[in-house]
């Protein structure tokens, strides 16, 4: 049972480049989330989706975009990468947005130089 799968695991970008972080889940969960985790800080919500075709901003959305064309996939797009976006990015999913636990992937470690 794969759960939440994120690719790539590591990536180095140059300032101004763009890239897409991939996330897919096989649990048929409606809700999906993108977080970033910086050293000594809690996970911060970037964007979330309550179902295919529906997305909304989280706490720190600037510099990112998302789309949700299928239940399974929730890619995160970085346009014009900046050093401040160096972080570890986690995708998560949950059955609903209530008090069901979120299940996380193993993250993408992104460095922008």
């Amino acid at each position: 049972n794969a759960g939440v799968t994120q690719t790539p695991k590591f990536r180095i970008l140059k300032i101004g480049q763009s890239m897409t972080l991939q996330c897919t889940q096989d649990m048929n969960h409606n809700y999906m989330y993108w977080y970033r985790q910086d050293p000594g800080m809690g996970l911060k919500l970037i964007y979330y989706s309550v179902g295919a075709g529906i997305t909304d901003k989280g706490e720190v959305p600037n510099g990112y975009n998302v789309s949700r064309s299928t239940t399974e996939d929730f890619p995160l797009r970085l346009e014009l990468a900046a050093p401040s976006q160096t972080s570890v990015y986690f995708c998560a999913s949950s059955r609903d947005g209530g008090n069901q636990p979120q299940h996380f992937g193993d993250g993408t470690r992104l460095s922008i130089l």
Partner: protein
Amino acid sequence: EDQVTQSPEALRLQEGESSSLNCSYTVSGLRGLFWYRQDPGKGPEFLFTLYSAGEEKEKERLKATLTKKESFLHITAPKPEDSATYLCAVLGGNTGKLIFGQGTTLQVKP
């Protein structure tokens, strides 16, 4: 504003030395408090959900408790394999979003 603070930031224990991790929170309308375990290079792994003050949950050497202002994760007779970062998160009624604390990094030495 919903807020979660975990203490201590880091904790070193000898194998078998029991202790507790603290998660203090302020939230409007708590819908759930979650504990996660995170190993280096991995994503958070779900441990417990607590819904109301007085509730307790147990799993192996871990026991989570909840009051109206804080939660404790008690670790009884820890083993080296319990070494990890433990994350606390609250789900508030107003925002419907998880707010995470910064985590407590536990190291258990044999």
